[in-house]
């Protein structure tokens, strides 16, 4: 019984020692491989610097694109101006993020009807508010409209 116990002890000890040696060899190989890779990466340091720079600039560009700009409002206003009757004059436009306040001058009521008809069908705006409406015999109708973007 003692002999069997001793034999078992020796066998298990030998297995553990072998396992330890194998792990040590693998660890050494991995460290050696890491050193080779580090050398190779070191030679590509310039590329890494450039990539870091690009990633950094892209994150900043993304941040800028999320900032307030009235480009959308300008595009919408441009589209409105292309569709309104030719006898209509845009006398003033104030564009800020989400809103465009405009003043139009219209020669007569027929053109006014055409202007309103062309504005009613606009889909790019959430709301169009009539801010003021007046008539001047020498100039015609003066209408101020507030466009709220979607």
């Amino acid at each position: 019984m003692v002999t069997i116990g001793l034999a078992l002890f020796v066998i298990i000890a030998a297995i553990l020692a072998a396992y330890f040696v194998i792990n040590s060899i693998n660890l050494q190989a991995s460290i050696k491989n890491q050193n080779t890779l580090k050398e190779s990466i070191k030679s590509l340091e310039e590329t890494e610097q450039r990539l870091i720079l690009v990633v950094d600039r892209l994150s900043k560009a993304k941040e800028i694109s999320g900032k307030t700009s009235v480009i959308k409002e300008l595009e919408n206003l441009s589209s409105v101006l292309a569709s309104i009757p030719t006898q209509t004059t845009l006398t003033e436009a104030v564009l800020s993020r989400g809103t465009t306040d405009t003043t139009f001058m219209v020669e007569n009521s027929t053109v006014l009807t055409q202007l309103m008809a062309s504005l009613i069908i606009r889909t790019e705006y959430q709301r169009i508010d009539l801010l003021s409406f007046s008539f001047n015999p020498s100039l015609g109708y003066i209408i101020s409209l507030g466009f709220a973007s979607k």
Partner: protein
Amino acid sequence: MKKTLTEIVSPNIKALGVPIVILLVLIVLSAISYKIAFSKLSAQREELTTAKNVEKVLINKEAVLSQIQGEVGSYVDAAALAVPSQNPALAMISQLKNLALNKSVILSSIKGGSESTTQSSLMSADITLGIEGPSVAIIDYLKAVNTLAPLSTLDRVKINQSGGSARAEAMVRTYFAALPTKLPAMTEPIKELTAEEKDLLSKLSQLTAPMFINLTPQTPVVRESPFD
């Protein structure tokens, strides 16, 4: 007559006593030595796993860097022109003037503002413009500001029209940010460009870049003596 302990214990048990003691010692010894061996092995195994993970990261990093080595140069140009490291107000003014020529509008006034810092590391410089021309041309001009490098935003636009011509006031805010100063640790995983970032990069490369002129240094010339 009083019996001693050796006399009381039977000879069979006596024969078993020594091996049992040896066996017990062996068991205790095994328990202690295996405990030590297992803890050592476990630590070594952990070290090996970490080493393998680091190796994987390094292999991936090397592969990514080798792959993008050729193309990253062009990415840098587009990205650095879009978000420069120094105040781009002068370059932007030049861009706005060139654009005005192309869009047939007149820049009646250009005013540069002071630098301002946002919550992040992004900084900005404001340029206030006075633009004259037909209203359609002015709108077309302002829309095209979006296509210029460095990146900028239009904060507020006011257009007035009387007679045949219009006048507009607009504030262009142009951005810049300091360059990153340190590289991540060698064993840190590398961040590859995502599809979204590549898409953004392709948009940035389509921006109209400012024109820079490289002045070559003049070669030394022999000065004539005014007294001869």
